[in-house]
């Protein structure tokens, strides 16, 4: 083995161009495989990080997954709300420690506006039960005050003190403005890597106030209630989109879920975030499977190319192998020489692929986060990636046995004088 290694290296260097291209193919396919695995894992983690410490999400009865998607991830829109009375009854339940009412529907320049209460800043947790922190300012206290998510502030360049107006409804341009009731930025949250970063937070009463003179999605003609007068009206919300519930004891979660499902006044449901997330994974599982299969095929193509190159070189190397044999190399050594080459290229490709994946994640990570809200981590490969790497190495080593075995047969048949 000690005699073979320098020989294998020098021989490989002699064929560095074809082997280099093969190495590139293996590297790129490994990068693809690892990149997709990283993306998959980080997307999952990102979803799982978005909400933590919340025992139940309560909303109008419907699809649990949809409830979670719009209440936590601001994806899609709610079709039904739940009444404020129900929300209040929920908060008063003896098993409940805290509730965070959430009301969605408006937006600001494409970013969702969330109506909530100060309980949000107190009880909401993300990631590993981390509380929300303020990068600047403080929670809203007055009526027309807004707290921005980190990305909203950064992208739009807002600072505390800035006055902004909200749009009615979700979506892009051409929305009706709540132009008569501007909001003042009073706080900016520290980055969380979750949908919170993309959200503007206002009080439930403020949300009620800007819609006082609205009906059916449009301002009521001829009616204009100026901001100074809104306090004369009852600003208690009639309904909210969803309520996040924290229980005093996790053990009560299923009893509470049943309690909500049996609620008499209106049809409600309570969803365990983890259960709804696993429904999401099931849904995405097919797409993930396809992506994985494609990247596995790319690796297979890379390794097939490697074997083809090593096998093709074998015919040119028969003389070289015969000389080695005449000078003391055993057929076993010849086998090792060839297998070593394929194995080394696979190993190098795997390591380079890992490096390239890390470089790409570091380089493109900020862009992906800004554009898609997906946090990519360039840290040490997780178990999924290690399995993928191990699989590539194993497949590469097994594939390299083929040229090794062929060289072994040839060197036995040729002896010291290759019949060319």
């Amino acid at each position: 083995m000690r005699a073979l290694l320098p020989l294998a290296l020098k021989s490989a260097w002699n064929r560095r161009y074809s082997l280099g291209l093969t190495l590139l193919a293996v590297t790129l396919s490994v990068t693809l495989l690892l990149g997709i695995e990283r993306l998959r894992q980080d997307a999952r983690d990102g979803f799982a990080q978005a909400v933590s410490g919340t025992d139940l999400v309560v909303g109008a009865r419907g699809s649990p997954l949809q409830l979670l998607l719009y209440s936590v991830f601001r994806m899609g829109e709610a079709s039904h709300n739940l009444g404020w009375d129900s929300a209040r009854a929920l908060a008063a339940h003896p098993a409940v420690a805290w509730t965070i009412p959430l009301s969605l529907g408006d937006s600001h320049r494409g970013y969702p506006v969330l109506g909530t209460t100060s309980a949000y800043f107190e009880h909401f947790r993300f990631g590993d039960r981390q509380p929300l922190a303020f990068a600047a300012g403080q929670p809203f206290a007055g009526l027309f005050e807004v707290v921005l998510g980190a990305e909203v502030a950064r992208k739009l360049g807002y600072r505390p003190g800035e006055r902004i107006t909200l749009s009615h409804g979700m979506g892009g341009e051409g929305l009706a403005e709540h132009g008569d009731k501007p909001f003042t930025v009073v706080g900016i949250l520290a980055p969380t890597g979750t949908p919170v970063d993309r959200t503007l937070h206002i009080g439930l009463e403020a949300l009620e106030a800007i819609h006082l003179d609205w009906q059916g999605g449009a301002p009521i003609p001829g009616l204009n209630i100026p901001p100074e007068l809104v306090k004369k009206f009852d600003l208690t919300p009639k309904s909210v989109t969803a309520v996040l519930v924290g229980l005093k004891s996790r053990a009560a979660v299923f009893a509470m879920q049943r309690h909500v499902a049996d609620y008499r006044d209106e049809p409600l449901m309570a969803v365990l975030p983890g259960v709804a997330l696993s429904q999401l994974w099931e849904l995405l599982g097919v797409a993930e499977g396809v992506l994985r299969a494609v990247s596995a095929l790319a690796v297979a193509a890379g390794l097939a190319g490697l074997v083809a190159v090593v096998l093709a070189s074998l015919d040119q190397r028969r003389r070289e192998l015969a000389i080695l044999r005449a000078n003391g190399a055993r057929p076993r050594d010849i086998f090792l020489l060839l297998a070593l080459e394929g194995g080394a290229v696979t190993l190098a490709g795997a390591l380079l692929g890992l490096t390239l994946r890390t470089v790409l994640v570091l380089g493109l990570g900020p862009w992906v986060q800004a554009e898609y809200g997906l946090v990519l981590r360039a840290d040490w490969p997780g178990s999924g990636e290690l399995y993928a790497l191990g699989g590539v190495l194993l497949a590469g080593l097994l594939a390299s046995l083929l040229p090794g075995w062929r060289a072994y047969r040839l060197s036995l048949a040729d002896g010291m004088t290759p019949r060319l």
Partner: protein
Amino acid sequence: MTTAPLLLLEDLEFRWPGQTEACLDIPALRLEAGEQVFLHGASGSGKSTLLNLVAGVLAPTRGRVEVLGQVLGELSAADRDRFRVDHVGLIFQQFNLIPYLSVLDNVLLPCRFSRRRRERAGDARAAAATLLRHLDLAESLWRRPATQLSVGQQQRVAAARALIGRPELLIADEPTSALDAARQEAFLDLLRRECVDSGAALLFVSHHRRLERGFGRALAMAELNRAPAEAA
């Protein structure tokens, strides 16, 4: 204790698998230590087969090959490989060198695989340098890839490699056929002198009768081999 002959063939027969006629049938052949023997054989006379049998790459159908008292047939394939590199140096007609190795690394090749050759060479690099110098290869060539050398230079590098670590037997299979007549003589002289220096016996195979001058003994395949020539 009488010293065993360097090489002893007894009642040797070789038949390629699937053939009924033997291509080699040699009743006896004996070489003493340090002896220089010229073996004349036209192409197709079975000399390459004979060399493969002596080197232990092929196994005889009948009879035995003994090198330094060791019956090759009694060794496993792996042990035969080790025995060959330990005791036998080989030079072929052409393409002796590994193209991607330097001249020096080519010469050191047997020392990589054989501990005995490595130990007998002492300082292997110094031994290689001495051999290369004796074989008229300028030091400026040593670091070059083998492919940059002329055919004559390559054959001398091959000779240095066959001699390093002082194996007991040197087998040269038409090593001069790629050289012009004037250089053939010069190469042969160098080779014989170096064999004497290192104490190796030389089994020199060629179809050029005129090269047998200077050898202690000359043999002919046609007389050694009882099998009809076409069968080889």
